[in-house]
């Protein structure tokens, strides 16, 4: 069994981000993905494997070919991951603002 890979490490790599951008535009086979890169095909396959393991890509058997699709749900999770952090700061700053407004009124 594979250890679940860290999705943020997965997208830290520029080649993998390019792969995601390609597949986002159109679902395609590993061969079609590899043809967009100068990198050796096994290297591209390794990147695809990592993206599949962390569920950013899903694979679908289509006859003799495997088609890779983007998993929009997982991509959304990445976009959302910053929100709790942002909310934490926003609430902290709201508190700061209301404390200082009262402070001003006391003067």
């Amino acid at each position, binding site marked *: 069994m594979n250890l679940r890979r860290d999705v*943020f*490490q997965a*997208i*830290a790599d*520029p080649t993998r*981000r390019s792969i995601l951008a390609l597949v986002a535009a159109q679902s395609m086979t590993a061969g079609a993905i590899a043809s967009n890169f100068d990198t050796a095909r096994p290297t591209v396959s390794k990147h695809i494997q990592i993206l599949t393991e962390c569920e950013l890509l899903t694979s679908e058997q289509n006859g003799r070919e495997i088609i890779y699709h983007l998993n929009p749900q997982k991509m959304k999770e990445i976009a959302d*991951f*910053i929100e*709790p*952090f*942002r*909310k*934490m*700061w*926003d*609430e*902290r*700053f*709201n*508190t*700061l*603002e209301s*404390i*200082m*407004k009262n*402070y*001003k009124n006391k003067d």
Partner: protein
Amino acid sequence: MELKTKIKAEENTQELFITREFDLPLELLFKAYEDAEIVEQWMNTKVIKLENHKHGSWKFETSHDGQVVFSANGVILEFIQNEKITRTFEMENSPFPVQLEFLTFEEIGNEKSKLTIQQIFKSIEYRNQLLKMPFAKGLSMAHDRLQNIFH
């Protein structure tokens, strides 16, 4: 409701920017960072030390049920009234290395001000880990408590 706080964390960088505009004059916004008693109120922490000058140091400690649950400290590298604070930030008892923080305070009009915090991390991985931290159960519980206190 739209959050007033913006976070900019570009991929593949080891920094992040937190920006927020306040309906407060610049002096009051700065005072919220300068005055230990006020910091204690909005950060919901105890200020052990806050030496607001170049080469000064600071230390905060947050307790719950008599136990210290969070503590952080650092040194102040620059302190310019109503303009900027540059400091280090180190979370105690955590694997996170020291981070560097640049706080910039600006006036953006009548009784309005803006705070920009640039945080620089030892690596991209540490930055991403920190961003994910509010997901951690303990912290989110502490956070819920915070919300209850203020609402």
